């Protein structure tokens, strides 16, 4: 099963320790064949909305920055519990904040 974990932006500035621990975690998960893809996202971005025939393209940043996704990880695991356990480990490294785990269907 594939799960996408998205992490919201937080106020705490990352320090050296976080970077090292994070790198180790990512390395370990890639080696175990669990982590398929991961990356950080630029703040803001471009918003594209459609209404009827009309497409509106808006440049960021946007007001509700707290809810914006700042990073993602696509993992392949056997069960939802495995995904949650990995999420738990991730949260322990990054400190206060929030992530969402969702199963990915397809392709």
């Amino acid at each position: 099963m594939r799960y996408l974990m998205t992490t919201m932006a937080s106020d705490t500035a990352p320090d050296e320790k976080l970077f090292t621990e994070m790198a180790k975690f990512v390395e370990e998960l890639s080696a175990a064949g669990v982590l398929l893809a991961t990356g950080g996202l630029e703040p803001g971005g471009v918003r594209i909305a459609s209404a009827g025939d009309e497409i509106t393209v808006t440049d960021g940043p946007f007001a509700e920055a707290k809810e914006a996704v700042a990073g993602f990880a696509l993992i392949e695991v056997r069960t939802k519990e495995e995904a949650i356990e990995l999420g738990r480990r991730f949260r322990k490294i990054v400190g206060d904040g929030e992530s969402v785990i969702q199963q990915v269907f397809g392709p």
Partner: protein
Amino acid sequence: MVSDAHQTVDAVWKLESAKIIGGLARMVHDVGLAEELAQDALVAALEQWPQSGVPDNPGAWLMTTAKRRAVDHIRRAQRLEEKKQQLAQERPVQTDQDDILRLMFISCHPILPTQARVALTLRLVGGLTAAEIGRAFLVAEPVVTQRIAVAKRTLAEEQVPFELPDGAELAERLSSVLEVIYLIFNEGYSATSGDDLVRPGLVMEALRLGRLLADLSPHEPEAHGLVALMEIQASRTAARTGPSGEPVRLHEQNRGRWDQLLIRRGFTAMLRAREISATRIGGPGPYVLQAAIAVMHAQARTAADTDWAQIAALYELLVRLVPTAIVRLNQAVAVGMARGPAEGLALADALLTDPALRDYHLLPGVRADLLVRLERYGEARLEFERAATLTHNEAERAFLRRRAAELVAEPEHPAPRPPGPEASDRASGRVFGEAAQGFLARADLDPATVRSYGQTMRALTRGLGEHLPLAQLTPDLVTRVFTTAWPTAAPATWNRHRAAVRSFADWAGLGDLTTGLARRTQPPATTAHLDPATLDRIWNLPATPREHALWRLLHESAAPVSTILRLNVEDLDLEDRRARAGEDRVTWRSGAARLLPALVADRTAGPVFLAERRPGPGRTPAPGDLCPHTGRGRLSYERAEYLFKQATKALDPEGFTLRMLRPRGRV
């Protein structure tokens, strides 16, 4: 909450078990024991976590608990001092990662039968339970449990060291690991049994194991090659089954449904394999070559864009390394696409006499496709029909029948020999299948003959297709079927089939069809012998004491099976390890000497090897073949042979025969 905690324990276990078992195995030098200690820690977690809550670092908790138990165990074994020293001396270079790699190598040790390697790898490295493994391979849980137990015992008894192989051994051991992983993958990807064409759980398990191995042995191009091959093949999972579950072949797949993420991961692994290969002497290995072929397909935007010349060249290299019939058949397809159907057909035709492909529907399927392209529609139709008869997949059978029906029958060739007037009535315009049925329906054949001829006719029908016009049945075709269907048949069997064909030809007025088939008088091949490693595994198979005594005795005495089964208790001289069987003298060594006394127990007369039950009514054996103590009869050759064959199926898909137990050079 309790079940939540249980699920968390399970998840943590699956993520951590390899590391834990590997670490413990380094401490106690016994994988089986290490696994039991780790299981103890798991049980402790199941007991404590629901109450105390899941600890902050559950993996570390399991590891600490398990290590404590290992130390306890060592203390109990009163080897504390010695082990303390060993623990103190442990080199810091041995990391968790090395532990897991060692665990992979030992799980795939060549000393173990393949199925045991698979089960042990999934168990120790993948963290799967016996029930989960059983479900994946459609076997009962106790079978898996047994396989794992026997494997662990074998490793302990053989004192296989928990170390990484080096030098020349490394290559051989690595190829065993690669083979096991690819086997797991293929069982999931092209399920050989069951209703589903794909079992995604096993595909994922194999991918995980492969990625792990590639990371642990980053300098092995074949490890990366295997990962590349699996990622790219797995990328096609969604596209390779149609709406009703039927297989969709590569060139007909909707390439838009290929998983680009996996393809890209495959390309990356392939690049790494190439980079390492570039620094090595010698050409690419079989997995890198297969991955390269998969890459060529993945790079083609449409089936028509496929670079067949390149693929044919890769197959040429692959055939040199892995000259199996399947690889050569794939090569025939590639060559047919690259250099035209005639060249492809020449390669496919060379496989017609290969026994490995005797019942494999893809051979006639491939030939049919090539024949169509050569506009030889009549032959193509027959090959499609034959492929349809051989396939086990209903959807595929319907497809092949449809292909056959689309081809208009060619006008038939003239008969090779002018038949007699009455026989020509039987032969003209008829197809082989009908004629064979007519032949078997004759009134003047007794049932036994019909049964015997029926076997021959069925094999011919499978080999030739039931729609082959009788007029096209030539001695060459018959020879081909014989050499593929009965390559190692005993002379009597061979001659029986040959006689059936002669009788059929005579009845149908076809002239002699057996000109290419000599009567056989000599056994076609000498009996195969078992190597020491296989014998060791046989000695460890689960079987009754009687079987083990019989097998050991056969091996150590080198006497014929019938002689050994004829032995009576009163013939035995256990003290001097010898017996008299009529004119023959039989001697044995320590293995049988250890087992025989328990088998004989306090019996004083009667057959040494007894049947399991008393003879049924109406089957009164000679008094000499009855045990005066139990009333049971003498063990028959057939029964002993059957039991041995069944028991050794754990080691070889065909099982072995008792004769093969005799040591080399003694037959």
